[in-house]
């Protein structure tokens, strides 16, 4: 039935539409925020996942510190700690997008998420965002480890900028994670793919090794990855440099990934219903 009646005008119908759009936007934001918080809670209560999030980056950071000490730039130890922390954030996002989709499938919640009367993006974005947030445990862990064991003081050039860059990096990587998750919904063995993506991406993104030290052909790949710009923003906040252009690039690419992921999910969800990959059996 049309909303336009004898007592209504185009102006009032426009107002009603605007109110509905605002209400829908607020509802969508609530789903994402509440969902992300509850997924963070769920992930943070797993001793295994928390231990993994702390221990693996510490091993990587230890290797990095010894490499940097042996090299010509021992003053970059703080960058080693930050870089290892970023690798932890990336690992969490990657395994969170692949592994968590698989986990949702194993625990039988993937079907319950997909059957909700919401766009699939609103059910999966909280999962990938939550994994990016829990990835920051790795960052905190490596910074604390560097300070306690190697005396690396976290004296960031721009402490507030570092917090903003880390938050922006988490948001950007969370949105990138959604694009990955869109493909992982279709793959019953998504965790196999995540294993092969982990190291190449952090290597190409320059999280630990400067991009300038890598072969030239990796440059264009690095330029389109939000991980590259997120890592650059965080390192610039730590060591000094223009944070905001890098952070803006990270968020812009993240937003593009979110848009692509949203579109892909429409197709992917339908495809998953055809191929019956939402459940294990």
């Amino acid at each position: 039935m049309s909303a336009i009646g004898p007592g209504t005008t185009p102006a009032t119908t426009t107002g009603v539409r605007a109110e509905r759009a605002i209400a829908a936007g607020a509802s969508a934001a609530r789903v994402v925020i509440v969902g992300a918080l509850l997924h963070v809670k769920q992930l943070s209560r797993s001793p295994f996942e928390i231990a993994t999030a702390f221990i693996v980056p510490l091993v990587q950071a230890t290797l990095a510190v010894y490499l940097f000490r042996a090299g010509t730039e021992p003053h970059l130890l703080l960058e080693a700690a930050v870089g290892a922390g970023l690798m932890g954030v990336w690992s969490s996002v990657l395994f969170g997008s692949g592994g968590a989709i698989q986990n949702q499938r194993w625990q039988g919640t993937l079907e319950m998420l997909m059957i909700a009367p919401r766009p699939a993006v609103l059910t999966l974005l909280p999962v990938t965002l939550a994994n990016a947030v829990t990835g920051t445990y790795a960052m905190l862990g490596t910074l604390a480890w560097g300070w306690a064991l190697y005396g690396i003081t976290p004296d960031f050039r721009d402490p507030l900028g570092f917090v903003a860059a880390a938050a922006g990096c988490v948001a950007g990587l969370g949105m990138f994670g959604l694009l990955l998750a869109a493909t992982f919904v279709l793959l019953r063995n998504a965790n196999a793919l995540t294993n092969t993506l982990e190291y190449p991406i952090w290597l190409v993104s320059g999280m630990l090794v400067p991009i300038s030290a890598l072969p030239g052909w990796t440059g264009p790949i690095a330029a389109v990855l939000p991980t590259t710009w997120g890592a650059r923003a965080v390192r610039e906040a730590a060591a000094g440099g223009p944070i905001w252009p890098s952070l803006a690039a990270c968020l812009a690419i993240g937003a593009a990934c979110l848009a692509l992921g949203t579109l892909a999910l429409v197709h992917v969800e339908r495809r998953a219903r055809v191929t019956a990959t939402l459940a294990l059996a």
Partner: protein
Amino acid sequence: MNAIEADGLRRTYRQRTGWLSPKLIETEAVRGVSLSVARGELFGLLGPNGAGKTTTIKMLNTLLIPTAGTARVAGFDVVRQTREVRRRIGYVFGGDRGLYDRLSGLDNLRYFAELYGVPPREQRRRIAELLDLVGLAGRERERVEGYSRGMRQRLHIARGLLHEPQVLFLDEPSIGVDPVAARELRRTIADLAATGTTVLLTTHYMAEADELCDRIAVIAGGVIRALGTPAELKGGTGTLEDAYVSIVGEVQPA
């Protein structure tokens, strides 16, 4: 208008095996199911394991797209009007899975209330009502991993009812539940149907189907073999189990 209408539903699963010389294995899980369920009716779907019960439910609740045939739930097409169907249905399945174990029962309900679009102002009241209904009031702040099978099942049901669905799909909800909890579950299901909720129930428990269902379809080999009221299926003599065994016994196992 019927709450559920299915016409010639078919579903084939395709599975590729092998790397060097891949083979495509096709399994016809459902082979032309047609049924209609009236509003407020409690309809049972019985059949042996692998008969096609869950596949039929998953086509009706939009989780699977039929290979052929059409279905409408609450007047909406399950393939083209997915969102409209999902707003009006609840889905509950049996077993331990399907919940966030490290969260409390309350957190699980809060999250799904958001996902199912329950208005924020109504969530607290609705969740409290459902916790009372399923007998979990007072235990809602405990982690689900500490819940018994029966408590998990009751939480499943509370979740399925959060958005007051018109049609409720219950896929073996009493599996592994102790007799006392199963009786409570049956009472809850009967109350829901009495208040106008359409229920499609699958179960292996004949007494449960006999007690609850207005009509029953027996499915085997992906095809409906018999459909009628429990009294019609029993034919005046014997039990529903006798009738079921005689119907299903005629079908060769898949």
